[in-house]
């Protein structure tokens, strides 16, 4: 940007940066693939009632063979049916909603919690940092899945509870990253100047520190959705996540796993959906890290 150029108003420049970021993502084959998958999945979740070929909860008579076995893919049921004769394609499309709702909700809470803890500890330092960061160390040493299962068993799992449980396990990574960055930023002159000028803590945190931390929050927030999607699938597969009959990709496999040798499509298609969504967020997150963190340029 040359010195003579008129600096656009804040909102406009932010909009421009977002558009620039999306352009950069679409230029790279891997992240472009990820973006396309994410857009398609979000589309499927939003327009689920319009594109589902059948009712995902209907146990149809036509959905089972003469001997009562699930139907393989093809014909009227494009991806086959499950043990109760429900259309797998429709259940997968409906399951996209479950995965994305929990992914966004759990990850949103984890970001707020993690970034909140990290920024507070990094800015104030001293005993506040000592207490908060020792606590994150403690959470790091917890066997994450065991903790999630115990939590899910304590509270009767609903969508919100599952999201909260996942957030409780997943905020730690974000807290550590943000803590390290805030600590180095807080020492810098432009923050010290604000302190000397008598700016309030909240103002410094939100107006001066947060903007510098946004790239990390965006990168780890995106990668975090992938972790969240995988954890939700795993909890649901173990039967302590999203409860049937609400379809989630994980609980579809949970319900049908004993029949995987005769009806492998009931594991294959939901498994594929989970991998695709997690992969998409990993690819986009990884590309965002390359784009937003210039110190990593050339290493990949």
């Amino acid at each position: 940007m040359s010195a003579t150029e008129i600096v656009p108003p804040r909102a406009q420049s932010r909009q421009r940066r977002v558009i620039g970021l999306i352009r950069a993502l679409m230029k790279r084959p891997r992240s472009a693939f990820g973006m396309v998958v994410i857009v398609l999945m979000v589309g499927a979740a939003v327009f689920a009632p319009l594109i589902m070929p059948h009712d995902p909860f209907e146990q149809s008579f036509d959905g089972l063979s003469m001997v009562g076995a699930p139907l393989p893919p093809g014909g009227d049921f494009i991806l086959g049916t499950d043990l109760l004769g429900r259309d797998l394609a429709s259940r997968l499309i409906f399951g996209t909603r479950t995965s994305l709702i929990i992914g966004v909700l759990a990850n949103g809470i984890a970001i707020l919690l993690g970034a909140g803890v990290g920024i507070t500890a990094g800015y104030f330092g001293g005993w506040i940092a000592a207490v908060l960061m020792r606590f994150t160390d403690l959470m790091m040493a917890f066997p994450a899945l065991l903790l999630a299962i115990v939590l899910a068993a304590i509270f009767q799992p609903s969508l919100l509870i599952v999201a909260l449980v996942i957030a409780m396990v997943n905020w730690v990574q974000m807290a550590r990253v943000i803590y390290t960055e805030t600590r180095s930023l807080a020492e810098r002159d432009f923050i010290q100047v604000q302190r000397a000028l008598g700016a309030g803590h909240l103002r410094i945190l939100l107006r001066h520190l947060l903007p510098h931390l946004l790239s990390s929050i965006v990168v780890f927030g995106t990668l975090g959705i992938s972790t969240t999607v995988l954890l939700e699938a795993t909890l649901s597969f173990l039967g302590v996540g999203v409860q049937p009959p609400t379809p989630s990709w994980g609980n579809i496999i949970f319900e049908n796993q004993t029949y995987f040798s005769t009806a492998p499509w009931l594991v294959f298609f939901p498994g594929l959906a989970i991998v695709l969504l997690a992969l998409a967020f990993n690819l986009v997150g990884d590309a965002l890290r390359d784009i937003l963190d210039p110190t990593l340029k050339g290493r990949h």
Partner: protein
Amino acid sequence: MQAYLVRRLLESALILLGITLVTFILLYLVPADPARQIAGRSATAETVQNIRDQLGLNDPFFVQYWRYLTSLLQGDMGRSYLQRAEVSELIAARLPASLLLMVAAIVTELILGLTIGIVAALRRNRPADHGLMIFSFVSISAPQFVIGILLLYVFAVQLGWFPIGGYGTFAHIVLPAITLGFLGAGWYSRMMRSSMIDVLGQDFVRTAHAKGLGKARIVLRHVIPNAILPIIAMIGIDIGLFMSGIVVVESVFGWPGIGQLAWQAIQRVDIPVIMGVTMVSATAIVLGNLLADLVAPLIDPRIKTK
């Protein structure tokens, strides 16, 4: 170094103490009544009360916690509510199977991950590199239960090369080890690739080329050994991944380890067993992290032990 070691050991002990407290609070909050589980459905309220008294469940929280902590320090993890055995015996009986599985998984992930990383770095930005990196992205995006069930379907059900589940022979361990090591293979391949690229760009490699050494010799004798070192230091951190992974992998393959023990205990609210497995896992994770922190400065003296 000694002061650092002492400080890290103290920190680790404090972390473990914190974990006993948090786990105990969580399990204290479990709404299901263990006494009711032991007594059975037809038991009278009086019987249930007696059992609660015997187990000390009517005592205040801190009394219960203190009792747990003091016996834990003496190596006593209590008795299982539902199986007639000490928790330590139950865990000791199942730990070897889990350790075996984890060692096999470490071997798998290192062989897979390092090979992929090395090949990708040597073929940097060519089709082979892109293909391998996409594979590594897929491997970190695939849930273990999906990998496990698909491997079972292809190699056990369809091809019949391996048993469907269970424990005992070498053939039994192959599929669970691949399943548990698959995720780590993805991480290792990416770290190995960037570590190789770093080393390939350093001056001593250029000097070796200038001296007229053959490319194969440079890569095998100089680049790979240097690139592997920082990777090896991270094995300790894997313990955390494995401790979560074994719950799923052991349940899919019917592997009789502590993951399966934990899963059964959670389903039946066998609180002493849940506490026990959590503590054993947490101790393993803390020791793994400690090991990684202690090994790193030995390998790379630039890392200071402040």
